[in-house]
Structure formats: structure tokens, C-alpha cells
């Protein structure tokens, strides 16, 4: 028995029962989504007809993964209130900045030009199948193992609470997501995201209330924390990892750089109109703010509520709080909220990865005469194949690859340079975009792996992206300008 299992009371019957009901509900939503998914545009962007509640909650639940409910509270447990820096101070900007800078244009281009993927935009703006393939390939390579990483969380939770082997949780979670995504496409993903986002929110609120109650109230908790160490109540936190550089980095990472995440970028293509965009921004922002603040704060409270956790036990701080304060059925329901966080991330990753292969590589490069209906049918098959590969990743747990991939996922943020310059500067060229992204990614890898001091105390992505922007401007100045047709389509025709 490991250290975590000694602390947690296994409750297999309530846990299996709750999961069974939860999966059946997801299945019903998936079935409904299937009936409404009839063509390629439905499959990838709901034919641009997503409403506000679906868009807002899907944006929020896609953004938040299992680490939001396990890794982040664990960090706060280790460092104290400074750990809330991870997402709380900059969270309010995580949707309004993308909406203001690129959202309105993306909604319009989705409606007018039929864009379905991020590579559709990049390929069209830079008149290049090269950049389209580069983005699609990078995206698939990074996102598939990310899905595997999320399934591992499900496996660990199921093993801890029921004693079942980890692969059972990985396969169960993978299969249910594959089914509703294969059948219902993005509609299946976004509709289930509404349920999952709601469950995540309830889990965060309840966990917070229990953590405060067990700790004896705010005043008692904070007095105890002060007694333990004043560092738990100030920056840079216990251990010193949240200094000002990291504080600024976190604010920028969780707002500006979400523009580069394909799962979030494509949500704008799905939005019905601007009214939906604004409602989604407000709903999603409030949801994210509440969930992140309360769940991370719960991690700090747990220092007093559930003292003495060490090593891997700390990752289970949220389930432990729930088990201490609730009966087995309700705690199982809310712990499944943590699995919901993983599922709502995987489903969007699965759909955009499918788009990368079927739309960006197959239809636009390999077989240009493939009809949308051919690609629609192929997309369902590819969704299953990618999902199975992700499950295999989850089961095999190639640790070193995961470490590489997890930071490389951050490298998708480099793509914010060609997106922003492509939308705001007519002089941005194909060569400028491609070369700067390649060099920016190399720089990002070098700083992250070896030359940490080059980051100047900030996150490596911030420095790498800044250099990418400079490189793109310089290279664009000395390479052939975009065609007049592209400039007209991406600037003049969008003015209104």
C-alpha cells in the first residue's frame, strides 16, 4: 500500500456507481450531438452556431485540465498564498484579451471564409501549405501525448479510490471520450463540456467551503499559517519560486498566450455571432476565476485543514478534503469533477488533432480533390485512431517523452507571433512566419532545457516569443510581400 492509499478511504461501490451514471449521461449527450452532426463544418465548428453557455463553459473547461485540480492546489499547499499567482491575478484577462485582439476577426473569418482550424487561417493568410503542414504536424505531435497525460490522471484517481488497475481508468476515460467525439464531433465535445464545467465549478466551491470549515475559519487558518511561516502569506512563497518575474510570467501566459492554443482559437470559429462571443467571455471568465481561485485557495487552507501531507500525497489534497467533509457518494461525485476536468480537455484536443490530420494535411495537402463529406467520414475514423494512440500513451507512460512534450506544448504559444502579425501587419510574410517560428521554437527548447538564465527570470516562452516577433519583422522586411488578393481578404474585406 502506498502513502496515498494509506490516507484515502477507498469507496469502490459509490465511486463506480457515480462514474456509471456520469458516463451514461455523457453517452446520452453524445447521442444527441450525433444526430445534429451531419457534415464537416458541424463536426469541427458546429457550423458556427454555438451559443453563449456552450461557448463560455467549453472555453473554461477546455482551459482547465486535471492539473488545475491536482497539481495547482498541490503547489499552493507547498508554497502558500503566493501559489495562487499561477492563475488568479491574470485570469480575468484570459478571454477578453484573445477576444479583443483576435476574436472578432476569427468569428468573421469563420463565417465568411469557412475556416475550421487554426492552420486554415495560417495557411490562407500566408498562402502556404508549408506553414499549414508545419502547424498541423506540431499540433498533433504535441497534443496526442497531452491527451495521454490526462488519461493517466483518471487511471491514478480510479486506482486510488477503488483499487482497480490504472489501465482500467485510462481505457474507460479514453473510450468514453472517443465515443462522444467520434459521433458528435465538436458538438459532442462542447455539450459535454457544459456538464463537465458545471461539475468542476461545484467541486471547486464545495472543496473551498469544506477546507475553510475544517481549518476553523479564515482567521484561524491564517493565524496558523503565520505561525508555521510568514513566507506562506507573502511572495515569493515558501521555497521562493514565485518572485516578481514569475508573477508577471503567469499573468501573461494565462491570458495573452492562450491565443496560440488551437483548442481555444477554434472556439471562435464555432461562435454564432458577437453577442455570443461577449456572453461567452463573461460566463467563461467568471467560471474560470471562481474555479481557479477557490481550488487553489483550498490548497493553502489544507496546510491547516489536512496538515502533514508529503510527496505524492500532496497531489491528492482536493480528494482528501472532499473525503474528510462529505459522505462517500457525494465525495465520489465531486471527485469525478476532477476527472471531468481531464475529459473536457481531452475532447477538444482530440477534435483539433483530428482536424490537423484530416483537414489540414489530408484534404488541403495530400488529396485536394477530397470532398468535405469524404473528410467528414474520415474524421470519425481518425478520431478513433488518435484516441487509441492517446490511450496507449497513457498506459505506457513514457516519462521522459512526457516531460519533453509537456513543455513543448507551451511552445505552441510561439505561434501567437504569426497570428498577431498576420492580423495586424500587412508586411508579414510567409518566410517571416515560417523561419521565425522554427527559430523561436528552437530557442524555447534551448532556454527551457539548458540555458535557463537567458529567460531573465521570466518564463522561457515570453523571451522566445519576443525574439520570434523581432525575427519575423526582420525576415518579413527582406522577403517577398504577400499577394494583393491575400491583403484584400485579410484586411480590406474585414473592415466593418
Amino acid at each position, binding site marked *: 500500500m502506498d502513502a496515498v492509499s494509506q490516507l484515502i478511504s477507498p469507496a469502490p461501490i459509490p465511486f463506480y456507481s457515480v462514474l456509471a451514471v456520469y458516463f451514461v449521461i455523457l453517452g446520452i449527450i453524445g447521442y444527441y450531438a450525433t444526430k445534429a452532426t451531419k457534415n464537416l463544418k458541424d463536426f469541427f465548428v458546429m457550423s*458556427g*452556431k454555438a451559443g453563449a453557455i456552450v461557448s463560455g463553459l467549453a472555453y473554461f473547461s477546455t482551459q482547465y485540465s486535471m492539473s488545475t485540480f491536482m497539481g495547482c492546489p498541490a503547489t499552493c499547499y507547498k508554497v502558500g*498564498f503566493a501559489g*495562487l499567482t499561477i492563475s*488568479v*491575478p*491574470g*485570469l*480575468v*484577462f484570459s478571454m*477578453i*484579451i484573445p477576444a*479583443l*485582439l483576435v476574436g*472578432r*476577426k476569427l*468569428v*468573421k473569418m469563420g*463565417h465568411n471564409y469557412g475556416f475550421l482550424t487554426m492552420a486554415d487561417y495560417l495557411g490562407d493568410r500566408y498562402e502556404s501549405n508549408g506553414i499549414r503542414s508545419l502547424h498541423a504536424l506540431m499540433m498533433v505531435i504535441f497534443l496526442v501525448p497531452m491527451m495521454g497525460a490526462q488519461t493517466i490522471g483518471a487511471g491514478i484517481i480510479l486506482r486510488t479510490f477503488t483499487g482497480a488497475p490504472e489501465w482500467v481508468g485510462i481505457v474507460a476515460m479514453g473510450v468514453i471520450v472517443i465515443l462522444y467525439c467520434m459521433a458528435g464531433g465538436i458538438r459532442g465535445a462542447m455539450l459535454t463540456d457544459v456538464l463537465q464545467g458545471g461539475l468542476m465549478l461545484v467541486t471547486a466551491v464545495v472543496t473551498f467551503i469544506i477546507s475553510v470549515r475544517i481549518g476553523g*475559519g*479564515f*482567521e484561524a*487558518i*491564517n*493565524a496558523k499559517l*503565520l505561525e508555521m511561516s*510568514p513566507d506562506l*502569506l*507573502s*511572495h*515569493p512563497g515558501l521555497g521562493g519560486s514565485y518572485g*516578481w518575474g514569475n*508573477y*508577471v510570467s503567469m*499573468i501573461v501566459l494565462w*491570458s495573452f498566450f492562450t491565443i496560440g492554443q488551437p483548442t481555444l482559437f477554434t472556439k471562435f470559429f464555432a461562435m*454564432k*455571432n*458577437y*453577442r455570443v462571443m*461577449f*456572453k461567452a*467571455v*463573461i460566463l467563461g*471568465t*467568471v467560471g474560470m*476565476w471562481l474555479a481557479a*481561485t477557490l481550488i487553489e*485557495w483550498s490548497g493553502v487552507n489544507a496546510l491547516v485543514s489536512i496538515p502533514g501531507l508529503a510527496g505524492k500525497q500532496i497531489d491528492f489534497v482536493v480528494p482528501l478534503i472532499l473525503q474528510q467533509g462529505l459522505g462517500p457518494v457525494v465525495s465520489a461525485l465531486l471527485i469525478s469533477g476532477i476527472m471531468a476536468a481531464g475529459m473536457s480537455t481531452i475532447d477538444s484536443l482530440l477534435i483539433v488533432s483530428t482536424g490537423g490530420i484530416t483537414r489540414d494535411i489530408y484534404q488541403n495537402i495530400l488529396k485536394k480533390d477530397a470532398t468535405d463529406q469524404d473528410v467528414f467520414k474520415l474524421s470519425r475514423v481518425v478520431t478513433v485512431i488518435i484516441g487509441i494512440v492517446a490511450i496507449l500513451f497513457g498506459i505506457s507512460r513514457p516519462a521522459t517523452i512526457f516531460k519533453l512534450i509537456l513543455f513543448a506544448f507551451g511552445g505552441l504559444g510561439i505561434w501567437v507571433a504569426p497570428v498577431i502579425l498576420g*492580423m*495586424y501587419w500587412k508586411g508579414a510574410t510567409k518566410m517571416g512566419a515560417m523561419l521565425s517560428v522554427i527559430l523561436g521554437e528552437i530557442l524555447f527548447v534551448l532556454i527551457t532545457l539548458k540555458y535557463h538564465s537567458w529567460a531573465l527570470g521570466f518564463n522561457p516562452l515570453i523571451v522566445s516569443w519576443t525574439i520570434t516577433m523581432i525575427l519575423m519583422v526582420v525576415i518579413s522586411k527582406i522577403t517577398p510581400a504577400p499577394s494583393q488578393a491575400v491583403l484584400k481578404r485579410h484586411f480590406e474585406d*474585414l*473592415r*466593418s
Partner: protein
Amino acid sequence: MDVLSNAFEKRWFYIFMFMYFIIMVPFPFFFSTTYIPSIQGIPLFVVGWTVHTVITLALILLFAWQALQREEYHEFDDQ
């Protein structure tokens, strides 16, 4: 139709950028290397973040309301 060419969006862009950068300034109510207690002993910077978030949310609501009074934001309403 963007923050450079549309005066309405440009004005709001500057407002949000002001709110964005001000929270990065290490004022003691946003970032503090010493413990400054506030209500119930909660660190002052947590209260500072909350107040800043509420103000920004109010600005987002105002921006959305003003934007939806404008013709260009109703382009796809009939679809």
C-alpha cells in the same frame, strides 16, 4: 475592425491594457514580499487581486454592452 483601425475598439484596448499592466506593477496590494494582513488575516494581495478582477469584469460588461449597441457587432445576428 480591430484595435488599430476601429476607434471604439482602440479606446477599449487602451483601457484593458491599463488594467492588464497595472496588476503587474509590484504595488503591495498586488505583490508583497512581506505579510500584510487584511480582512480575517487574508494577505492584502489576495484582496487586491479580487478588487482588480471585479473592476475589470465590470469593464468587460460595459464594453460588451457598448459594443452591442453598435451596428458592426450585429453582422451575424440573423444567421
